């Protein structure tokens, strides 16, 4: 159980976190989502006791991260961003070292290192120097070191960044497997990843939580105010005129010109109070004798939500 209350962090004048609060129950896979510099890594660094918060508190299974860091560190496996590892050690030596530091008894270490590296798909290059590994292999070693003491909580900072699509798929299914019996917090700016792996989504923007819920919940919430896409063409039809005619409609609140250069006019239109304005638009098109190529409800997907929520002010 992770409890974060009113977490704040400033670096000098820069406010990196402006009061984050959330709770993660046991066994949930949570995705932190947000643009670069949103505060995802900062939050993770505070959770793992790498650095303290300026204000607010983090408690993990009832242990405060600032007061009892050793207790907290024991319960967490951490994969930092960009997977820093000792490049002059072999994979086996490195994992055995982490196992020793994690208080795994000497007689269990060999078995544990072999088991975890099999789980993470690192068993084929145990004897290789870390410096010679590919990005995907490094990531596996990074995951293995985070898992070696079988922690109830895993914190993974961008576990799939820099990997190719096949590697991403493999790591993703590994994370899903791991999440069956432990709590995982991972950060990413890849939406597909979150949709496919996470039970819950926390979108962070400029140091604050802007959305928190299951992927389905977030999609539903946004579906209440749909965008209508209208694509028309015709003799002497230009974007200016169409835009003007559409915005003049009573039921329309906003219309945005999304036209491409191929001669057709495309608009993204929102109706008042989520009203379905497609009949009105059809009537307008008939009246103006526009040829309609498309008139559809644009179901906003997570990507759209993300873009909307994290638009720069």
């Amino acid at each position: 159980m992770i409890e974060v209350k009113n977490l704040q962090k400033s670096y000098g004048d820069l406010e990196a976190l402006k009061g984050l609060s959330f709770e993660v129950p046991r066994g949930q896979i949570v995705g932190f989502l947000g643009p670069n510099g949103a505060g995802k890594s900062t939050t993770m660094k505070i959770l793992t006791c790498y650095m303290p918060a300026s204000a607010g508190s983090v408690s993990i299974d009832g242990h405060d991260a600032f007061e009892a860091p050793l207790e907290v560190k024991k319960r967490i496996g951490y994969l930092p961003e960009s997977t820093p590892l000792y490049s002059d050690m072999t994979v086996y030596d490195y994992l055995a070292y982490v196992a020793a530091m994690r208080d795994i008894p000497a007689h269990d270490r060999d078995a544990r290192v072999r088991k975890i590296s099999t789980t993470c798909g690192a068993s084929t290059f145990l004897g290789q120097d870390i410096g010679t590994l590919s990005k995907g292999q490094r990531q596996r070693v990074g995951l293995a070191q985070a898992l070696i003491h079988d922690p109830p909580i895993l914190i993974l900072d961008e576990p799939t960044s820099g990997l190719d699509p096949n590697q991403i798929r493999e790591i993703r299914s590994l994370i899903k497997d791991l999440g069956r019996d432990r709590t995982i917090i991972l950060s990413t700016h890849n939406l597909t990843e979150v949709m496919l792996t996470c039970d819950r989504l926390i979108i962070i923007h400029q140091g604050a939580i802007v959305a928190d819920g299951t992927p389905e919940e977030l999609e539903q919430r946004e579906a209440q105010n749909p965008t209508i896409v209208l694509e028309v063409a015709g003799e002497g039809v230009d974007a200016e005129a169409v835009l003007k005619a559409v915005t003049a409609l009573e039921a329309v609140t906003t219309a945005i010109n999304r036209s491409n250069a191929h001669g057709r006019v495309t608009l993204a239109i929102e109706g008042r109070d989520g009203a379905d304005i497609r009949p009105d638009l059809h009537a307008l098109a008939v009246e103006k004798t526009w040829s309609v190529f498309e008139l559809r409800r644009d179901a906003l997907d997570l990507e759209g939500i993300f873009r909307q929520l994290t638009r720069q002010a």
Partner: protein
Amino acid sequence: MNHTWTLARRELMSYFNSPIAYTAIAVFLLLAGLQFLYGLVTPGAFGPGADFFEANEASLRVFFEGIPLLFAVFLPAISMRLMSDEQKTGTLELLVTLPVSEMQIIAGKYLASLVFLAVTLLFTVPYALTVAWLGNPDIGPILGGYCGLFLIGATYLAIGLMTSTWTQNQIIAFLLAAMICSGLYFVDSLVGNVWAATRPFFESISFKAHFQNISRGVLDTRDLVFFLSLITIAILLAAHSLESRKWKA
């Protein structure tokens, strides 16, 4: 304690897995050999124009006089990467999120560098054997000299470890440590010679004066306390600097 030893073992593995350790030891032994035979960094120590054989004296006196100077360059080169490298490559983040305290981390790193120092000193034992084979040296100053070398080396390493927590740039860590070490070695002759009134004070804080006492075979508590307190201060400052990331901004 277990964690400290595990950390030290890993550090030593890194030292001896890379060519840096061997290169550094080789260069050091070469210079140490020249010092032993010709008084490389202490010209005239065997008498005008003389070398070890011409001086016809069965002792390691000149060797012990020169090694602290070589150490002031050699040991900072060994200690510079201890913490700087961890900061530069980001492995520090994994290191401090392991269930260990800052003090254990520093102690582990320091222990590893002391083992390295001991290994280096072991490689110079053949000089002592040579002297024992050629003549009949007084054993007291030789044992005292080695104690002194280990103490002064341990102090240099503690200072080097401290400067390497200050920066992720190994060169800066090296230069700072070499400057502090050689500065404190020469401080009595540098300032004391120009301004005679300050000489007693600078002798009391100079590495050279304290080292010379020990290497004569006189193990005085004052000299011991001097080196041990410098080591303690440097180690505490190093742990403190590692902890400073946790200060609430």
